[in-house]
């Protein structure tokens, strides 16, 4: 068992200042990887228990918002004996450093992991400038 494994646990969060949640469900910050290549940004977020229909991804002026909700568990005829995790909503926002082609954003969810591919707009892609000798 490695030390990194503890970092898999989700962490609680607060909403940005000036907003308040309307429902009393716990709020979590999904643990997220962000990586970049020449063509796109990739955002990978752990949201265990999240329902694909509840996932909401938005880009507004280079701010990416990812949200999702995991429904509370319950099993008929069973009572919770030991509770180590809660179900609730996941919320996270990122400021993207370059222009994104919003029309071409793709997102998938599988096994509680949300993957978003954000292609860079053509203007933001690196270009090679050829230097001509005069």
């Amino acid at each position, binding site marked *: *068992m*490695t*030390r*990194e*494994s*503890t*970092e*898999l*646990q*989700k962490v609680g969060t607060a909403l940005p200042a000036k907003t308040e949640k309307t429902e009393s469900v716990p709020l979590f910050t999904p*643990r*997220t*990887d*962000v*990586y*970049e*290549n*020449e063509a796109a*940004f*990739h955002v*990978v977020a*752990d*949201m*265990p*228990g*999240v*329902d694909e229909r509840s996932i909401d991804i938005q880009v507004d002026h280079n701010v990416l918002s990812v949200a999702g909700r*995991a429904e509370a*568990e319950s*099993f008929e*005829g*069973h*009572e*919770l*004996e*030991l*509770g*180590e*995790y809660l179900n609730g909503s996941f919320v996270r926002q990122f400021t993207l450093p370059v222009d994104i082609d919003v029309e071409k954003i793709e997102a998938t969810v*599988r*096994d*509680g*992991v949300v993957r978003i591919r954000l292609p860079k707009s053509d203007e933001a892609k690196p270009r090679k400038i050829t230097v001509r000798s005069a």
Partner: protein
Amino acid sequence: MFWTLNGKEFDPFAEVRQLQREMNRLFADMPTRSAQDFPAVNVWTGQNGYVVTAELPGVSTDELDISVIGDTVTIKGERRPDEIAPGESYHRRERGFGKFTRSFKLPRRVDAKEVQAEYRKGILKVTLPRAEEDKPKRIPLKTA
């Protein structure tokens, strides 16, 4: 040795110790997360058995190993890191990876043959029925 006016022994660190006790009490209820606590589990108890759920996002079912011996359940597995292609670089990397093992004892024996596991939306759900020989038995009363 210090003495106070009324002749009692004076302990200059009594206050400090009191503070320490209070701090310990304050933190006693805080859940401490250590490597042994992954994955986080919820255990549900019912008349006829238990349901154990664990938060395991992005784990391949091939990498999961659940075993039951008597009343002890063990969840073992590994979460592999994403492979990134050459030319890709991380801006941030918060999702952990690695091997994990979690064992816990249930209050009663379970029927290992009847245990079922299901993995959906990154949550592992293990259903463990109580062992037949361990279930409560109703003793019929005979009237003479």
